[in-house]
């Protein structure tokens, strides 16, 4: 299988006044289409940082990320937006849902973002159906009219996953998708992710739970800014 995403020589550091925290030190990483990769590592080891860079939400200080052979840092603004909208679905560790939109609207947001107003009017019904089926799959069918602040942490997390899957992205990047769930619900979500993977969905997932990581095909361990 060909490499869908390939990162090479990634450096990332944060300056805090005089001290410089080096988070990623010449990190190489790649995912092939259809893979289910788990990234594990201690808290603060840079898992989220790496995932953000892979999803073009952040830029490395040095090194590059290629998606299907094209370098993300060479993308123009429009291409970058299209990449974030269609190619990847990102599940944030802290969900980042919009408080003013209800659950259904939050899930549909990526679909709305890609259409003009007229286009959206035409696609609205299909999009709504798809969003509802996703929410059903995550056990939130009866919460579609609620606002994010009316949901528990685990429920928000599931809304965030549904949103990430809305545009059927080639690559799903999930930062601790089960971090706030009890083991039963977490297992359910993992089951869904496995199902998706079986249907061909490429997934990169960050977790600090080794048992969850075992269910992925590949487990990658981050330590000292590198993959070990």
């Amino acid at each position, binding site marked *: 299988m060909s490499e869908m995403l390939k990162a090479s020589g990634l450096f990332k550091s944060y300056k805090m006044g005089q001290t410089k925290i080096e988070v990623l030190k010449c990190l190489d990483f790649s995912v092939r289409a259809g893979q289910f990769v788990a990234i594990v590592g201690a808290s603060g080891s840079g898992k989220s940082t790496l995932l*953000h860079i892979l*999803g073009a*939400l*952040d*830029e490395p200080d040095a090194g590059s990320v290629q998606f299907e052979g094209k370098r993300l840092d060479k993308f123009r*603004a*429009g291409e970058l*937006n*299209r*990449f*974030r*909208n*269609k190619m990847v679905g*990102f599940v*944030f560790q802290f969900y*980042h*849902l*919009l*408080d*003013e*939109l209800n659950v259904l*609207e939050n899930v549909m*947001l*990526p679909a*709305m*973002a*890609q*259409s003009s*107003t007229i286009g*959206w*009017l035409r696609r*609205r019904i299909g999009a709504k159906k798809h969003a509802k089926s996703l929410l059903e799959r995550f056990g939130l069918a009866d919460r579609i009219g609620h606002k994010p602040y009316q949901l528990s942490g685990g429920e928000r997390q599931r809304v965030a996953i549904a*949103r990430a899957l809305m545009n059927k992205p080639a690559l799903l990047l999930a930062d601790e998708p089960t971090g706030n769930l009890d083991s039963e619900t977490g297992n359910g979500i993992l089951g869904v992710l496995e199902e998706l993977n079986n249907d061909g969905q490429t997934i990169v997932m960050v977790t600090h739970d080794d048992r969850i990581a075992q269910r992925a095909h590949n487990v990658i361990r981050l330590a000292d800014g590198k993959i070990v």
Partner: protein
Amino acid sequence: MYKLILPTRYFLKRRITYLAVVAVALCVFIVVVVMTVMNGLVSEFKGKNHDFVGDCIVSTESLVGFAYYEDFLKQLEKQEFVQAATPVVKGFGLLTQPGTGRNIGVEIMGIEPAGFCEATKFAQTLYYHKENPSDAFTPTYNPTLAGCVVGIDMISRSRDRSGKYYHSSEPMRIELMVTCFPLTAKGALAKAATDLVNSKTIYYSDDSHTGLVKVDARMVYLPFELAGELFGMAGATPRASAIHIKFADGTSLKTGVGRVAKMWKVFAAARANQKYANLLKNVTVQSWPDYRRSSIAPMEKEQMMLILLFGMLGIITVFIIFVVFYMIISHKTKDIGTLKSVGVSRAVIVQLFLTFAALVGLVGAGIGAGAGCGFLVKINDMEDWLFERFGWQLWDRTVYAIGEIPNDIKWEVLAVIMATAVLAALAGAFLPSVRASGQRPVEVLQVNQL
């Protein structure tokens, strides 16, 4: 679609936006009310000056006056752009009230009441002769006596709290004596030692309320011929101090004054060799604002000061609106990060927040303007109510010559104020949203919210 959904939700669901609406509304309200009242006061004052002198004044500052005015009047009357023109004699004198010991220095205007009322709004300033101003100098209590009109503040009259002067149904018989120094055409005293002055006993026939404090406190109006005699301007070659002109409708002040000035130049040149030609040299043709400049200028200075102060207030207002929006959007930078992470373009993000700001700005400006207009419409009722209830007046009418508080709303001013408020809101939303949407999503998401 979210381009409309999101701004509308921000607008409806966030309490801070209600505060923003109130802030915009208050700012617009204050600016509308203060601007309207202030502009009203100034234009009222200017209007009173205009009413007092007419459109255009051909005059000399010399107390001697100028000759041949009758010829020029005849020329003026032939012009179709001139609706009315009337001669006036001006000078100074001493007014005494026999038996009371009261005597004051006064300004005297000799006028032809009918003509003067056509060229100016003099008739409106009278009390007893509003309907028949040509008889202004006829005392109703004895039509055979020589009458005079005095500025209303000269006869000790008091005003009630609504600003109205007390008047008895008939003018009281008041005997006055006016004393003047007559001058020759050369400017010398016309009479010899013992009999230096001209005195005349006159009777109060009416008073004039122009609303101009200096005029109402110092002016005595006499019949034109009488004033001419008192000042030594009557005679074989009579002189006048000024010609007051009213232009026909449709003639702009500028063109009218220009044409009169041209006529005067030709007129004066044609008389260059006549006996009193030197008196014509000091004659100027002025529009009413120029003629009353010494009176209007301080007011305009004051207005300039107010506009300056007000400009500062306006800038602060705009800044407050700007800050409110800056804070709201700064509160929402996390949303900008989220929107960016699902691929919303920078332009669309800015557009979202501009839509939101326009919504808040328009609603706020609308409410503020509506409340301002409502307040202005009712401002006089409210002042009356406050006065009746608490005895409190914004302007003490026994002191200030203000009738009603001016509340004539200028729609173009209103539109400018509202547009400025909306623009301030847009600017306040534009800067932070442009800044935040230009960053990487993670950078924005990590930003601590205010």
